[in-house]
């Protein structure tokens, strides 16, 4: 009996040990968070402090001049925008349709499970592999040459697994009772999906799409061999020609340019613009989610 009872001093000891371990637990979590925040702050500070001085209206509306040592970054901005548009035109419809098929129509057989596993694995393949594949397929086999369309399709391939996976997750979150509701009033399977399931899953689908595209917009490796150019004189924007893109421009300015000191501010400016673009895209995803949540409730 006594062994179950603790004396006062033992109780206090126990209490102190508990308190100590909870402080350690809490403290280690806080410390990890603080370390992560510290690095994020350093990165943002680094980019902003060095890039902010060159950021101006002219910087984003002028083409690069004098061997890219002055002028702006309009050409790479246009390139990245067009590239992202081509990527989404290819990856969004195919990705969403594929996810709808997998989640709503395909029976759960080993074939479907294999396809699904393959898609998940593809999203883990390093992006340089996609670059090589795009070079072999689009640039050479299909004879598109190193061009905007070849690079856009390559990025589209890279984006597909993400779009399929996020769309499928969004569709999975729609309970079967919602589907049954539509079927019970005489909707066909297609009408159920089109009128009830997709609209209910829209916030999840769009969030996935925007986040995937924001990632694709920042990719360098897949466009390296498929169409990104070191420098293009004057206007760009033809789908069958090479183009400049923000991430590649940044890579090139910071590692390949001969007068590295002169172009350093421009490189930081480019990094800042790229970060802002990605941030704005993520903000859009956040807004979509917020708007749909508000409408739903």
């Amino acid at each position: 009996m006594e062994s179950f009872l603790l004396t006062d001093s033992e109780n206090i000891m126990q209490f102190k040990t508990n308190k100590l371990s909870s402080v350690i637990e809490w403290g280690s979590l806080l410390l990890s968070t603080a370390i992560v925040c510290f690095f994020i702050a350093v990165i943002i500070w680094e980019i902003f402090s060095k890039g902010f001085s060159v950021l101006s209206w002219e910087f984003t509306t002028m083409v690069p001049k004098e061997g890219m040592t002055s002028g702006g970054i309009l050409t790479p901005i246009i390139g990245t925008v067009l590239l992202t548009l081509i990527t989404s035109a290819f990856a969004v419809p195919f990705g969403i349709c594929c996810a709808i098929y997998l989640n709503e129509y395909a029976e759960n057989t080993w074939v479907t499970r294999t396809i699904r596993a393959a898609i998940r694995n593809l999203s883990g393949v390093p992006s340089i592999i996609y670059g090589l594949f795009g070079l072999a397929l689009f640039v050479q086999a299909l004879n598109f040459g190193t061009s905007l369309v070849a690079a856009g399709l390559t990025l589209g391939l890279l984006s597909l697994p993400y779009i399929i996976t996020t769309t499928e997750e969004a569709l999975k979150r729609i309970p079967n009772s919602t589907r049954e509701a539509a079927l019970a009033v005489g909707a066909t399977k297609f009408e159920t999906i089109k009128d009830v399931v997709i609209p209910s899953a829209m916030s999840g689908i769009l969030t996935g799409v925007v986040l995937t595209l924001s990632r694709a917009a920042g990719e360098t490796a897949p466009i390296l061999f498929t169409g990104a150019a070191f420098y293009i004189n004057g206007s760009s924007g033809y789908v069958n020609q090479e183009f400049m893109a923000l991430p590649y421009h940044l890579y090139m300015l910071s590692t390949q340019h001969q007068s590295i000191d002169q172009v350093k501010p421009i490189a930081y400016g480019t990094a800042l613009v790229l970060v802002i673009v990605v941030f704005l895209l993520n903000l859009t995803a956040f807004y979509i989610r917020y708007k749909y949540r508000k409408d739903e409730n």
Partner: protein
Amino acid sequence: MKTKLSAQNLNISFGTKQVLKNVNVSFNENEITALIGPSGCGKSTLLRSFNRMHDLSPDANINGTIMLDDLNIYSKNIPVTEIRKRIGMVFQKANPFPKSIQENITYGLKINNLPHGKDVIEKALQEAYLWDEVKNDLKMPATRLSGGQQQRLCIARAVALRPEVILMDEPCSALDPVSTLKIEELIKHLKKKYTIAIVTHNMQQAQRVADKTIFMYLGEVMEEGPTDQIFNNPKNEITTNYINGYFG
């Protein structure tokens, strides 16, 4: 009393598990029939087979006949959507579409090419005793309604299509007593126009609303008859034990 809906020699299995064994039941026109029995006895499975909800499960195997008047609802040459239009369903958990109240009513009408004007919406909502509560907020998302209101909206959505039969799968199990009474009152009022089959776990509810009661046990129909007889003078010993609460 005319038989509206009936099942003959109905066997349903999922994979290797047989859920319904040689079920023979009938539902009379303009009557409320309650399906009672312990969890897992197959009453929901039976109910869902009446509007072919099992078509969604690839491993469901259905044998036997289900007749709506003199139409075999599993006959190959009749579209399943036509069956579901004539046999409506209200589910256990209210499942309004994530759309406005108005669109919840009009959706089924639109896809079936039926008129979906203001008068139709009002009539359906009035039949479901919901009109007075929502008439000024028809554009509001249906998900903002209370649980009881959502369930009445689901009933309104079903009656808007002017079905012949309404299937209800424990429609009050997620509701508070006040909402439950409202729905029960509504069900009793709806039987004037429709044939109603209701699955319930609540014996008091079966006694309050049902004209006829079917007691099921382990996938078989143990006993069916007028509600009074089933509850006051059951013939089967298992029925007696169940309604007296010895198991359930």
